[in-house]
């Protein structure tokens, strides 16, 4: 498998050049991708859902407006979370950030009940 000059592969250790390697991804890379996909897709959705609930609860608006605002905010939030999941260098730091944000939003969304 070859890559074009303008298409840089990224899940590579500094020692391995994707252009010369027959395999595009190693086992470590696959695990890394799977973890980031989990953080971005179900993780991103959870974050968006919690944000929509938190916004609906706390925005100083009539109920119907607050619900609509929450849904739109949730939609806006999901793609950047997905991008962050693949942009952050450190996987542990990504997990920490995501867990913290999710915990804060979950608190705002469901506490006090």
């Amino acid at each position, binding site marked *: 498998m070859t890559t074009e000059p303008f298409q840089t592969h990224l899940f590579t250790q500094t020692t391995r050049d994707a252009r010369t390697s027959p395999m595009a991804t190693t086992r470590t890379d696959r695990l890394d991708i799977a973890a980031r996909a989990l953080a971005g897709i179900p993780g991103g959705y959870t974050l968006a859902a919690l944000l929509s609930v938190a916004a609906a609860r706390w925005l100083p608006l009539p109920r119907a407006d607050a619900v609509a605002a929450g*849904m739109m905010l949730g939609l806006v939030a999901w793609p950047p979370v997905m991008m962050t999941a693949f942009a952050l260098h450190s996987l542990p730091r990504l997990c920490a950030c995501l867990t913290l944000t999710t915990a804060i939003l979950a608190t705002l969304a469901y506490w006090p009940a």
Partner: protein
Amino acid sequence: MKRNFRPAMTWLHDWSGIITGWLIFAIALSGTLSVFRPEITVWMHPELTRETADPIPAAEAAITWLSTHAPHSPDWYLDVPTPRAPFTLALWSDKNGYVFRPLDPLTGSPDALRDTHGGEFFYRFHFELQLPYPWGRLLAAIAAMALVLTLLTGIVAHRRFFADFFTFRPGKGQRSWLDAHNLLGVIALPFHLMIAFTGAVTLSTLLLPWGAQTLYKSDLTTAQHELHPAAIERPVTGKATPLAPIGPILRTAEQHFGKTGILSFYIENPGDQAAVITVTAGNTDSIGITSHVISFDGTTGTILAEHTEHRPVITTFNVLYGLHVARFAPGITRWLYFLSGLMLTALTGTGLRLWTISRTRNTPRLSTTLVDRLNVGFIAGTPTAFASYFLANRLLPVSLADRATLEIRTVFLTWAALLLFAALRPATKTWPELLSLAAITCAAVALISAPWHRSVDATTALTAFIFAAAFAAAARRAALKKRHPTT
């Protein structure tokens, strides 16, 4: 681990693109055709020779017909005739489920009109994908979010595309595909981002129902009432009571609405004492949808509730929704939607093509070869499958039982056959073959529109002819490339 922002986003762009690309291609193309939903329905009813219809008499005729032919349906939904769609579009239910038919504006009956879903097929497919509720809509909502992601990461990946805007190097293989991809991406980027995000907005109640569920608990009636204050729900009483004449009710609504006129109305519990008639204003003068609604008591004709939308967030939501469905759009704007939609379809197509070009240089993997082959089936096969719907509409006998279903089955059988064909043969062979077939099918649509008396027939023929010419040119290029694979 070495990781830079741009390569990471390029990787994400490539993979979210290839995973959702086929789906987005089909959604974008059917959505583009949906821009002309009423016009396609008119094209598919050659029996509709009159180009205008008076809304209120047509509604009266429709109600008279429905009262004798669908008295037990719990509700009737009717879109009144417009200059674009000179017929009443009715939806009711019988013992087999929903029935959806255009009604003749003079007689109120569907009998003189052939059984077809017309433009409604593309509209429904665009967000329901011919799958049962809610799976099709959920899949479409996820595709919309994936498109937002792919566009945002694409801006990072192809960051130089503004500078490269005036660069197009044809006949240079991958370089040309990349130039085309960049050009299509940048030229309508605001449209692409808008249509992807607003597409997700139209399905947001399904994607993110949690806010409403938390605030309203399980009280859906209150939620519905607060969202649509003029929608009145009354339980069936069982006491048969005739409907009040619909003409005066619609005239009253028309006076309240002003020059935007009536878009549609629905009657709940027709023939019962608890009948309610809810009328929605057109949105030709505002981008947002459903800005003005009035509901009437179905037996006395008195106004039960009226609501004009001024709430800021709901209005924002309605404007985003309205931007997507483009009911507000006058002729030229609608053609711009159509062209931008085509550009989005082509952007997706070139992206899919680039993904495989950069991976099939040497000895490609089996999976890459399969993707490469199926790309042909999707990119060249989808237009052919959609065009076959138009052909089936004119070629299937008018009196055929269940012909609307057969028309739709034609699309999926054609599509499946072309995908199978593409999967079994090398892509270098199927590109010219399937592109030629697309050209022939589109040319056939242009011819079968004859005689080109009605303006929709002439416009459809011209548009189909332009598509045929474009596919023929592409087929010719693909055939040349087959002989000289390096160019």
